[in-house]
């Protein structure tokens, strides 16, 4: 069985059609895990790639994510405790003094749809709260967002605090937001900068694989 039709429905965001397809696969004896890993995640991998290449756009990615999430809800009772392989784990938040959520929310959605586990700390997150979350969640990557020039120092403080704690220091840190850039990432000791959600997905995959 190919699961191509399910992947195709994820890519086109066919929210109505995909459920009937999944029902047919289940009736033919497919397991929830096979449907998720080969159908859904296979489809989302294409979505992520096309989004990165500028061939798909945010509303289309949201529609694909919605189709996928609807199926996940459907399949959850059938999983019987089997874990879906996670692509990696990220803690994300917008830094203290900054309440912008759109970029962070968008990236969270793209990452979740691509199999990452995302713990979203919200907006206005203090350096201490980031540290606490890194110690608690042990993520592969910490994502920091800042949309104001005046909150760039808060980003710097968060990185500094994380790096000063031996139990947290090794987490990979990726930053994003309108006023920041790769030079600033270097300057404050972050591992990477991503200009948009598509590149952030790719950078995440690189950071997790090393």
């Amino acid at each position, binding site marked *: 069985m190919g699961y191509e039709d399910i992947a195709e429905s994820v890519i086109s965001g066919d929210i109505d059609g995909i459920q009937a397809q999944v029902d047919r696969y289940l009736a033919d004896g497919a397991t929830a895990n096979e449907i998720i890993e080969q159908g859904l995640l296979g489809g989302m991998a294409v979505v992520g790639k096309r989004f990165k290449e500028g061939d798909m*756009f945010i*509303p289309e990615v949201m529609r694909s994510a919605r189709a996928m999430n609807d199926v996940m809800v459907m399949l959850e009772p059938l999983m019987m405790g089997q874990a879906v392989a996670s692509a990696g784990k990220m803690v994300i938040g917008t830094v203290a003094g900054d*309440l912008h959520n759109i970029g962070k929310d968008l990236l969270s959605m793209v990452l979740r749809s691509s199999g990452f586990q995302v713990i979203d700390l919200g*907006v206005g997150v203090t350096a201490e709260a980031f540290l606490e979350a890194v110690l608690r969640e042990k993520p592969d990557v910490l994502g920091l967002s800042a949309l104001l*020039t005046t909150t*760039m120092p808060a980003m710097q403080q968060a990185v500094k605090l994380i790096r000063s704690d031996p139990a947290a220091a090794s987490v990979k840190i990726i930053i994003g937001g309108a006023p920041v850039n790769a030079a600033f990432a270097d300057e404050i000791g972050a591992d990477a900068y991503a200009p948009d959600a598509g590149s952030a997905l790719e950078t995440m995959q690189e950071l997790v694989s090393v």
Partner: protein
Amino acid sequence: MKFTVIGERINTSRIAVRDAVAARDAAYIVEDVKRQEAAGAAYIDVNAGARLGHETEDMEWLLATIQSAVSVPVCLDSPDPRLLELAFALVSREPLVNSISLERERYEAMLPFLKGKECGVIALCMDDTGLPQSSDQVVERAISLAGALEGIGVPRDKIHIDPLIQPIGTDATKGYMALEAVRGINQQLPGIRTTCGLSNISFGLPQRKFINQAFLALLMGAGLTGAIIDPLDDRMMATVKTVDMLFGRDEYCADFLSAVRAGQIV
């Protein structure tokens, strides 16, 4: 009154501007702001916030450079009252101050700064819970901001409410929400001014120029009185001038026709 264009180009987040500021390349800045003025900018927005540790000296240099080159006033763009206080002492014409919001820290720092100053104020409909979620919420926040500013003596026609435009790509209702918000603000606060950075509407979508241009016309139709845009964007300025003309704000179609002759509307 004609639509108020606030020229957004002088921002050290933009690489070309950051480089020019770092190199103290006055010719670059002078050329840029002269073109903005010629294109119809009513204010030149100045944001010197992106070179951390250099904000003060960058702001001082930019103000000196810009104000000797153009006759339109500046819009001082910073959330930091200390930087604004310093900049305010250097302005030669009554500026706009960008901005105050309902975020507690900024609100409490900005109100004492603004008290007694001769300036216009941009007031963002943002509070500690984040972006507004409905047009009613925008209007409520606008009423709070206007009340506070009028309470410290800022006349209503110097208050520029920014309803905060959010991307249509992540929520299909955000365009209509903004239009309803502008209509509601004008209804509840007659005589108030409104402005916004409207290109956020098309974030993440292709062919943004068409979205921005149509949205600008719709916002002007809803009663928006100004916007923070790039005056060197010919399409946007063509929309501004054409809609101003269609609203009867351009006697004998004079500005429209001179923009056509100047090759700005083609």
